[in-house]
């Protein structure tokens, strides 16, 4: 009975993994196809990559995606962290109110957030384009950063900053040298969420953009009507980028841990 259950569990796990990875494998494999077909593999070729690199629209959308994601991540991480620190010391009613407002982009359907931002930019006569896309991305990424930093701050000793300042630290030193290092895991995971949210975003970007500024998702959306295997090539590139980011993120802590250990050992050796 118990063994049976494990087999069913293993089987469903296996099927789930196949289900989740099938489209990704499919895109990667067919990006090297030598024919235009989306169903039959003819042979190996790099022609779609060549076409992709020559396609200025595709390259532009790729750089737009990366630029927007980097700016949105940096700004929303800093803004979100400062806001979270500030809110933790604010009056309860302020904190409540802001967290209610913060919930809008998280709880609302994305399309409603998107339309709201689009109408906001139109109402204030801001021309839609790269700038509005960046502003919108910062707007929907920051609440997630706050959400991931807040619990870390709550678990801190509330007197920590005071202690630092009593010992002669200026408020900014207390913030940067005492509080921030303590909550860095939260900041880090917030930044990661912000980056992937921005990098993957379609719905909000689609509504707030203009003047032909497109990110990758918008490009895939507008190009998908016709068969275009270059989309597979650019998708493979995206898979590559995200995988690289994930590897760096997962390997870096291990490396820094090892470096620290080595350093500690070196110090021990010199002490001997």
């Amino acid at each position, binding site marked *: 009975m118990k063994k049976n259950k494990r087999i069913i569990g293993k089987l*469903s796990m296996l099927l789930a993994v196949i289900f989740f990875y099938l489209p990704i494998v499919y895109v990667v494999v067919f990006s090297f196809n030598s024919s235009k077909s989306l169903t039959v593999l003819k042979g190996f070729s790099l022609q779609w990559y060549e076409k992709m690199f020559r396609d200025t629209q595709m390259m532009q959308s790729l750089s737009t995606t990366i630029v927007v994601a980097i700016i949105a991540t940096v700004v929303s991480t800093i803004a979100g962290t*400062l806001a979270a620190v500030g809110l933790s010391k604010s009056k309860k009613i302020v904190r409540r109110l802001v967290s209610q407002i913060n919930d809008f982009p998280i709880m609302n359907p994305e*399309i409603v957030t998107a339309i709201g931002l689009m109408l906001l930019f139109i109402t204030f006569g801001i021309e839609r384009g790269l700038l509005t896309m960046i502003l919108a991305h910062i707007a929907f990424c920051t609440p997630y950063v706050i959400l991931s930093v807040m619990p870390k701050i709550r678990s801190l000793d509330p007197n920590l900053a005071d202690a630092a300042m009593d010992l002669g630290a200026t408020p900014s030193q207390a913030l940067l040298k005492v509080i921030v290092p303590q909550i860095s895991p939260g900041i880090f995971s917030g930044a990661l969420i912000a980056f992937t949210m921005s990098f993957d975003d379609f719905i909000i970007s689609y509504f707030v953009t203009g003047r032909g500024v497109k990110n990758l998702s918008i490009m895939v959306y507008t190009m998908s009507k016709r068969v275009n295997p270059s989309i597979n090539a650019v998708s493979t590139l995206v898979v590559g980028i995200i995988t690289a980011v994930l590897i760096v993120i997962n390997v870096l802590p291990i490396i820094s841990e090892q470096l620290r250990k080595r350093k500690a050992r070196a110090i021990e050796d010199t002490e001997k």
Partner: protein
Amino acid sequence: MKRFSQLAFPYIVWSILLLLLPMIIVFFYSITTGGNGIISFEFTLKNYIKFFTDPDFVIVLWRSVKIAVKTTIICILLAYPVAYFIAGNNDRVRNMLVFAITIPTWINMLVRTYAWIGILTEGGIVSKLLKLLGFAHTELLYTESAVLIGMVYNFLPFMILQIVSSLCKMDRSLLDASSDLGANGVQTFLRVTFPLSLPGVVSGISLVFLPAVSSFFIPKLLGGGQYFLIGNVIENQFITVGEWNFGSAISVIMAILMMLSMYCVRRLESKNSQESD
């Protein structure tokens, strides 16, 4: 201390401007007539009346709710065994499996949905597989089934992760207690494990149902031009037709609908947990 609370001030202003104000503007557009400037506008309920008196729109809304409910039910049924299996492992293996489920969600949704076009199209892997199993000529792409597959594909990971986290929070000794008291495996599952994992299922429902109702690129890519959901109607009003007031009204209706449905689900859950107490 006071000085730190000032750090929140810029964000308070920012969040009011970019998060709260847009919602007010959407509501404002929904209750005014078209062609309005900021100075000249006229209040009306015409936009809402138009939506509810036109059977076409009501049918689309009903269709969106129906497919979202189907997606949610399928997700629960598929997610549970997987989550149960993941939660039953030791920490190291569990983290690895959770990571394996998470990785695909990091890759662009559009890209992953686009990939299904090739898989589901005539002559693709799935139709070949179906032919082998004896189903002659099955058209999948640009049908409701394709949209359903796309939605389950995109939202299933959220359901799995939610159920895993609620199963992990469960006190394992309860299972031993249950079997010590004479319950068999099925009884333990139905009366201990499942009720305790309900919070995960509920938050999973909100992560699946809400985006499924409002999704518009999945039906567009996999359902073809004919398969319209409420999200597509909103997109059309803003991008093609240019009737922002009517589009805003539909958005408000959708947002209210979702708040109501989430409220009902939460109520149901709290009622359930009270009964089991």
